[in-house]
């Protein structure tokens, strides 16, 4: 995820202090990983350097210096361009799980066991997410659903692989 | 242009009917079997008149008793023939003794060569009976050897029991009425066939309407078999681009396929039924298969009308249905059924019948078309009213057990289907009730109640004159199964030997036997009595003036007789008349044996009242055997409390057979649609069982589901049937009385059909309720 573009986008509704930006980001997007202050300030200075934001004013206060940032026209154009550019779909071609299965087969270990263990682990995670989804608000539900669908896809792959384990063993043995 | 479109769509439907895989075939076959049964019944019904007329024709072709006053002289081409009809158990046997008087004597139809004395030519059925164990008793009656069988032209039915036996010496009995000299077989020249009386013609017309109408209703229902699956197929057709009208026509084509196949099956069923007609004996009536030929015009009508009706019924049935590409939508709330036009039908029927009220007893002719039209309208009114009645009643039904609720709710959603299933039964029952009522009303016109006193005797045996009375009485008294036999000799005395015009009855017997026919104050052998009072009391007094001579067995000049004279002795006692066991109160003279001139004996013929021990099986047949041994020309009569007119019997039989066939047929169709409905609910039934529904609850709901519409149908049928019956009775001029027994028995048969259908659908229902229905994998 591009933190720079996200912060820029948050500035579009009006100028904000760095601290406000972090709070808004955490609230909306940082469910699992809150931003560090350092990250905010280093990102903002990069954006400032590129002319995508400008300093709207500085409030002198007790603590650290409090700059208020505002987005520039160039910044708005940049956000627009970012939103319009589709994300490259994840190809998922590098799979640790696949590697584990093939290795298990090559070394004559029980690959089915690995699949089942993984399956149980996936479902455990899905249960946690489902539970959170039930207690959370709409944002929580959407985030969890996103994860659940991905986990479900993994699970379906696990099931399919379990069903084809014999064929895979033959292919690997060649 | 348009007709070509029609043909194309219908043809496509026909193809679909057979190309739909196993399911399509099953449906087409189901329809075909239903239609086929209907067609077979139609063909049989249309063939029956022909069969009956063929029977009549052969029956009159072998007529031998002309009862003409003219007497034929003995010649080269004459035949003496005597009636030897008898009864074995409950079966009638037509018997004739024949004695050809020359080489050109006419052969009876179906007989190749005259049997010689001691030989007989028997019908195949009689031959079989005589050769079987059960015919052992009958064999004793016929001291003849079977030398040939009677061929078809001489028989009215394949199961008819008939024979011709050779004999000699018949000429002596020519004057007695049961021996005749003939020179040809066939109806006498002045013979006019018995004209059926208009009331009987009315009955026959109504029977046909009553039998054929339910068949029509049934065929209409049969082409709708499997409707729900067909709907799905039609929706699929719409999805690939057929328009609504095309889909309808294709549906019509499918029905057409079933109907055409049904025609083929119907013909096969008919041929099979025709073949089995030879083994089927319904109350003494059997029919030759070759006589069962429907008239070509009627066959053509059936062949055209049935398929056409199939298409029309389907199109009519789909009128409230919208066929959408994604499914068939029955307009969610079908328009409420209206009552007024449904009432028009029966009212119209009544209007047609009304002008003929009371026509049966005076000029005696009915307008056939008005009778048939009125009856048809009244009965069709049942099928029009029933859906309305079912809908109206079912909508008001409510609380009750779970099974009741399931059934009622189902009926509320599809009362039309339910009503349609019952329509056939309702029409049949309504018609049958009306007919039974008509029968019951008309019956005493055609049934004479007799005056027989069954407490005194149950049989009467009459013999020829030359068997001695003592021998007759002794033989019959000693016969197995006889409790008591009173033998009398009967004859007449006249005032002149050669003129029987002025004569009186004479009975001769012992005092005890004479007391059976008169009240005697005192009696000894040698007494003579005259019966006072009654029609002949005065004449008897006149005849017994002392010194007068009267003559036994008076005959006209040219007839052989055994005339004997008796000079009246003084001391003729008086006796009062008494009804004999047959209810006859005789007049005239009574002689004890000691008083009778010996020469008078020959001119008398014995007659015996036989009282039976009813607990002895075949007692009547032992008596008949003894009588036949004493005299082959003897006649025995069963005394019964009533006699039914002969014309009436076959009509009634026809109704019973027909009504039973129709009800069984409709029961079969009910069963088929019931099973189809159950199959479609397989999944639901299984899930209901899963959550613990008792099988009894589901079975009961199936019963209610059939029983509610049938109960309503039978109720309506009773009302319409009684109305029609009352109108028909008024037409014949009879007083209207409701024959509750027949109402009960007809509704009982209808209810029996429901019960049978429910019972028969239970095993499949229980099978469907097994948890297999839940398996989806």
């Amino acid at each position, binding site marked *: 995820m591009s933190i720079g573009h996200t912060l820029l986008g948050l500035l579009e509704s009006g100028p904000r202090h760095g601290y406000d930006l972090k709070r808004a980001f955490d609230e909306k997007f940082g469910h699992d990983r809150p931003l560090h202050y350092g990250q905010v300030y280093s990102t903002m200075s990069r954006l400032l350097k590129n002319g995508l934001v400008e300093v709207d004013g500085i409030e002198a206060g007790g603590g650290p210096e409090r700059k208020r940032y505002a987005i520039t026209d160039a910044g708005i154009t940049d956000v627009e361009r970012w939103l319009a550019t589709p994300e490259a779909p994840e190809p998922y071609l590098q799979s640790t799980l696949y590697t584990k299965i093939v290795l298990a087969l090559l070394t004559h270990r029980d690959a089915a066991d690995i699949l089942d263990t993984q399956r149980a682990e996936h479902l455990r995670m899905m249960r946690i997410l489902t539970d959170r989804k039930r207690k959370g608000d709409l944002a929580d539900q959407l985030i969890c659903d996103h994860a659940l669908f991905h986990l479900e896809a993994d699970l379906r792959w696990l*099931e399919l692989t379990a069903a084809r384990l014999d064929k895979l063993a033959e292919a690997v043995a060649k | 242009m348009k007709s070509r479109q029609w043909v194309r769509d219908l043809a496509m439907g026909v193809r679909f009917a057979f190309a739909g895989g196993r399911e399509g075939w099953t449906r087409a076959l189901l329809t075909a079997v239903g239609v086929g049964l209907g067609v077979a019944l139609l063909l049989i019904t249309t063939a029956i008149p022909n069969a009956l007329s063929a029977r009549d024709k052969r029956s009159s072709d072998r007529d031998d008793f002309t009862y003409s006053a003219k007497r034929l002289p003995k010649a080269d081409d004459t035949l003496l023939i005597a009636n030897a009809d008898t009864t074995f158990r409950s079966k009638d046997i037509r018997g004739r003794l024949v004695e050809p008087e020359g080489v050109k004597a006419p052969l009876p139809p179906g007989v190749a060569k005259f049997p010689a004395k001691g030989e007989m030519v028997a019908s195949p059925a009689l031959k079989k009976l005589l050769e079987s164990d059960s015919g052992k008793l009958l064999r004793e009656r016929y001291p003849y050897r079977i030398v040939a069988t009677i061929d078809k032209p001489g028989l009215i039915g394949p199961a008819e029991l008939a024979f011709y036996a050779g004999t000699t010496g018949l000429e002596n009995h020519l004057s007695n009425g049961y021996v005749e000299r003939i020179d040809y077989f066939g109806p006498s020249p002045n013979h006019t066939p018995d004209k059926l009386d208009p009331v009987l013609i009315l009955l026959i017309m109504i029977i046909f309407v009553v039998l054929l109408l339910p068949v029509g209703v049934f065929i209409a229902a049969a082409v709708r078999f499997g409707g729900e699956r067909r709907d799905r197929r039609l929706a699929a057709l719409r999805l690939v681009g057929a328009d609504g009208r095309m889909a309808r026509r294709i549906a019509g084509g499918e029905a057409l396929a079933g109907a055409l196949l049904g025609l083929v099956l119907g013909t096969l069923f008919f041929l099979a039924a025709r073949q089995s007609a030879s083994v089927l004996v319904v109350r003494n009536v059997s029919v030759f298969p070759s006589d069962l030929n429907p008239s070509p015009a009627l066959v053509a009508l059936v062949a055209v009308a049935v398929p056409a009706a199939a298409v029309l019924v389907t199109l009519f049935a789909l009128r409230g249905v919208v066929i959408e590409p994604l499914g068939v939508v029955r307009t969610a709330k079908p328009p409420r059924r209206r009552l007024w036009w449904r009432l028009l039908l029966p009212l119209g029927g009544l209007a047609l019948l009304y002008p003929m009220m009371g026509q049966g007893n005076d000029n005696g002719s009915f307008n056939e078309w008005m009778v048939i039209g009125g009856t048809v309208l009244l009965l069709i009114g049942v099928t029009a009213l029933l859906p309305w009645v079912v809908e109206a009643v079912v909508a008001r039904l409510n609380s009750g057990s779970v099974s009741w609720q399931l059934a009622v709710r189902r009926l509320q959603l599809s009362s039309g289907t339910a009503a349609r299933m019952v329509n056939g039964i309702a029409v049949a029952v309504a018609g049958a009730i009306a007919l039974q009522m008509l029968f019951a009303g008309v019956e005493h016109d055609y049934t004479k109640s007799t005056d027989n006193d069954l407490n005194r005797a149950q049989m009467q045996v009459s013999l020829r004159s030359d068997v001695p009375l003592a021998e007759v009485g002794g033989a019959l008294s000693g016969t197995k199964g006889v409790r008591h036999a009173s033998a009398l000799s009967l004859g007449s005395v006249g005032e002149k030997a050669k003129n029987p015009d002025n004569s009186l009855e004479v009975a001769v017997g012992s005092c005890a036997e004479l007391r059976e026919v008169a009240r005697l104050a005192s009696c000894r052998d040698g007494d003579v009595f005259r019966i006072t009072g009654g029609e002949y009391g005065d004449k008897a007094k006149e005849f017994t003036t002392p010194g007068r001579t009267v003559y036994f067995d008076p005959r006209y000049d040219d007839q052989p007789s055994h005339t004997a004279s008796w000079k009246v002795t003084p001391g003729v006692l008086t006796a009062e008349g008494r009804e004999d066991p047959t209810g006859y109160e005789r007049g005239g003279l009574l002689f004890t044996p000691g008083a009778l001139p010996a020469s008078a004996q020959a001119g008398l013929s014995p007659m015996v009242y036989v009282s039976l021990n009813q607990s002895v099986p075949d007692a009547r047949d032992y008596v008949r055997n003894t009588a036949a041994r004493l005299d082959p020309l003897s006649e025995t009569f069963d005394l019964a409390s009533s006699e039914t007119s002969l014309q009436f019997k076959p009509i009634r039989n026809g109704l019973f057979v027909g009504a039973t066939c129709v009800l069984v047929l409709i029961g079969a169709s009910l069963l088929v649609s019931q099973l189809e409905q159950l199959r479609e609910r397989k999944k639901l039934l299984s899930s209901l069982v899963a959550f613990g529904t008792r099988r009894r609850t589901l079975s009961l709901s199936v019963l209610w589901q059939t029983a509610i519409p049938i109960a309503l149908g039978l109720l309506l049928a009773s009302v319409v049937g009684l109305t029609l019956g009352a109108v028909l009775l008024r037409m014949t001029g009879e007083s209207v009385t409701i024959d509750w027994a027949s109402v009960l028995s007809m509704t009982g048969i209808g209810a029996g059909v429901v019960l049978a259908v429910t019972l028969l659908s239970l095993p499949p229902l229980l099978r469907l309720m097994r948890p297999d229905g839940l398996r989806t994998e």
Partner: protein
Amino acid sequence: MTPAGSLLVADALHKSYGPTTALDGAEFSIHPGEVVAVMGPSGSGKSTLLHCLAGIVTPDSGSILYNGREMATMSDAERSQLRRSEFGFVFQFGQLVPELTCVENVALPLRLNGTSRKAAEKAALTWMERLEVDDLGKKRPGEVSGGQGQRVAVARALVTDPRVLFADEPTGALDSLNGERVMELLTDAARTTNAAVVLVTHEARVAAYSDREIVVRDGKSRDMERVV
């Protein structure tokens, strides 16, 4: 072998339909208030396991103990009685009686148990309220959507306060949004009444509503709890 406190325990279940083996030594156990998912590929025997556990189908061999009673020794009538009063059922589709209104459908199990019509329909309405379908009372199943119909079915399964609720692909015919709502309502309702839920499904996201899962493969069961 029997886990302590189990409500329904099955051991060494075998069942064949003709030549096909549906169950080949399957095991199962469930506690009150527990939601157990039964997963597995199509044709693995998971529906047969459910039918055996619910006493709809008698296994060829093996034992099923409900509340300490052996189901194999019960008569058909006893098992029907058990299903009426102690179990509830939800299937994928085709389970509502099309002629009855929704409230009559929900009231049906109570009426089968002999409750009066009025009381049964009153109880049915309370349950329909909890499943948010009380406004459908007078409609027939054909007139409501799939999700609504399934909720009516859940209400019907719960109306007798069953101790075990058997759900066979309850969301199979629904989209994911409706399916999840049904699952939420179903598991919530089961938890509040402390009913055990046997949930047959092939969808992982539906199974995620369970506390525990069992995988059936080739008629054999595997408790995934013990795998981890």
